[in-house]
């Protein structure tokens, strides 16, 4: 199992390396070449003089050849900014002060802040949204999926099919706006928008603000998960070992939960891990619809303002999250199914 884990982590690190290269090339040379947007010009502010641009280039290390720039980017990502970089970008300030301006993901053009501090200030919102939504959709879809697999063509199965269709066809911003209009504006059950920080002593305000956006987000995922749970369970319930369990005299609930569900859960766990990883990189539509200041909203802002380092930082950050989610999924699957540990 340890060797399995090490192999997965090394593989993940390689994927991240490839992503950094892709991000660097896309947001550096390709962007400059295709759109004439020079990062230095963007950083220098409105109507900069050529001298100003040159000094910004030197400041950001943009006067170096690309491969040197990439090497610096990589080093900064792995070990953080060096003292030499700090002295260049924020001379005369302490390390803590400079961290606010320059981080592992670089420095924002639009705001005088490090991309790291921007990401970390937004990440809790996105994380909270994703976790609450994930809880809701799993709690809805697993029981419904299992029950419709046990009784195919029953009333429940048919109504869940209708639910799946609705959930998959309606865009989240449409359901979101309807929900806001009726549940928040007209009947005022939920707040219109906004986010409260999580606190252990009283998590209710946090949950209260998240419930509506998370539910709307969850509906769409629940639809997919009902489908996959149902089909996986239908397949598994036809397996020989399920018949064996029945022949042993196991009760129907035991057959379903202990014997079938665990076997059917592998693809569900896989999908869940990847979806969660993807969501943690920002749920743009939901965040914008519900006025949540999460990573997705940050990405939209950054893109609008041509804030290249922030956009690139979010892309890289999301990619790392997905790679981590993948590794976790692999480990969970290997725990669930001993056959995976073999290869």
């Amino acid at each position, binding site marked *: 199992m340890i060797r399995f884990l090490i192999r997965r982590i090394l593989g993940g690190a390689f994927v991240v390396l490839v992503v950094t290269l892709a991000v660097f090339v896309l947001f550096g040379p390709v962007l400059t070449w295709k759109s004439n947007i020079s990062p230095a010009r963007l950083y220098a502010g409105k109507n900069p003089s050529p001298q100003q641009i040159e000094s910004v280039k030197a400041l950001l290390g943009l006067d170096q050849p690309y491969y040197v720039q990439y090497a610096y980017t990589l080093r900064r990502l792995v070990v953080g900014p060096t003292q030499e970089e700090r002295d260049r970008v924020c001379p005369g300030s302490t390390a803590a002060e400079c961290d606010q301006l320059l981080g592992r993901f670089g420095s924002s053009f639009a705001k005088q802040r490090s991309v790291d501090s921007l990401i970390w200030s937004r990440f809790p919102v996105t994380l909270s949204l994703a976790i609450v939504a994930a809880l809701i959709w799993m709690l809805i879809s697993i029981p419904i999926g299992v029950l419709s697999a046990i009784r195919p063509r029953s009333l429940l199965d048919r109504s869940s099919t209708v639910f799946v269709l609705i959930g998959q066809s309606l865009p989240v911003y449409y359901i979101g706006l309807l929900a806001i209009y009726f549940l928040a504006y007209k009947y005022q059950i939920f707040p219109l928008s906004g986010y409260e920080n999580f606190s252990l002593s009283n998590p209710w305000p946090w949950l209260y603000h998240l419930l509506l956006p998370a539910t709307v987000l969850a509906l769409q995922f629940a639809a997919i998960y009902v489908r996959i749970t149902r089909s996986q369970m239908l397949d598994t319930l036809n397996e020989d*070992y399920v018949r064996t369990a029945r*022949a042993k*005299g196991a009760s129907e609930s035991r057959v379903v939960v202990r014997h079938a569900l*665990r*076997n059917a859960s592998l693809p569900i766990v896989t999908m869940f891990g990847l979806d969660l990883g993807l969501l943690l990189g920002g749920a743009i539509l939901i965040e914008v619809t519900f006025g949540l200041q999460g990573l997705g909203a940050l990405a939209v802002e950054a893109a609008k303002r041509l804030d290249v380092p922030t956009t690139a930082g979010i892309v890289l950050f999301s990619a790392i999250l997905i790679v981590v989610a993948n590794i976790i999924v692999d480990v969970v699957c290997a725990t669930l199914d*001993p*056959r995976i540990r*073999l290869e």
Partner: protein
Amino acid sequence: MALLTVENLRTTFRTDDGPVCAVDGVSLTVDAGQVLGIVGESGCGKSAMSLSIMGLLPDSATVEGSIQLGEHQLVDMPKNELRTLRGSEVAMIFQDPMTSLNPVMTIGWQLEEAVRLHQKVSKREARALAVAGLAAVGIPSPEDRLKTYPHELSGGMRQRVMIAMALLNRPRLLIADEPTTALDVTTQAQILELMRDLRSEVDAAIVLITHDLGVVAEVCDEVAVMYAGRIVERAPVDELFARPQHPYTWGLLASLPGRNRAGERLHQIAGSPPSLMNPPAGCRFAPRCAMAMDVCRADPAPVLAAVAGSDTVVACHLDAPTRAREGARVASGEESA
């Protein structure tokens, strides 16, 4: 007194194209300590019959008639009651050991579950019973095997585990549905030997379902030959091989690879089994029978009747001398008519 008495069992599946009667009026008895073989080709209703006894058929199936196991009447028994009998009074071994064990649970977990579903014992006692069960089916170092997963065992080992699991609660009836079909020949021989050894030890009635007459000859006391949902001949195993009575049995015996016909093409029964959705009138084998007469193709179908001077019963319109003559020819290895 027979342990298992099946009378006039009819198992019907509802399908989109109409009802299919997979088992059509089967009657049989098995005594404790006896092995009854049921032979017939694929789709003749062998498995549907065994699943009817186990109560493991899907909801689309209806079972009529009578299945008396000891003091229990299994037909129309409430599901929960039937469930408590499964695995304790009646156990089953399935055809494919590769897929019949849960791949994500250890062997130990699955064996202990079987024990604890029916016996109020501690985890430790269940474990001890599991170890003893594995030892009884000849699995070396059973303690260590408990921690392994099914994919770490060979097919033969897995079938041993299945047998051990079936016998853990000392069932009175054991149904083995083609227990050796999915195994290679040497493993088959080992499993058959194991079953032969066990039958004397466990004193359970065994119903062995197979399409392999060689298996029947090795382990069974009595044989029932099934064709298209009905039993066409039932006989003590020596009788069946020495004096087969039914034309279908002749066909089966003649198609065995025999020593005296090496190099020749094997015999085959012409045609294919009838559709059970729309079975022919009269004797269901008549369309494929070389000796079929007009009476065979008309209702009523022949019923099982005793053959004079033996314990065999057969459902055939042919007269006794003809059956005796043809049967002797097949038994001696000559090509039948």
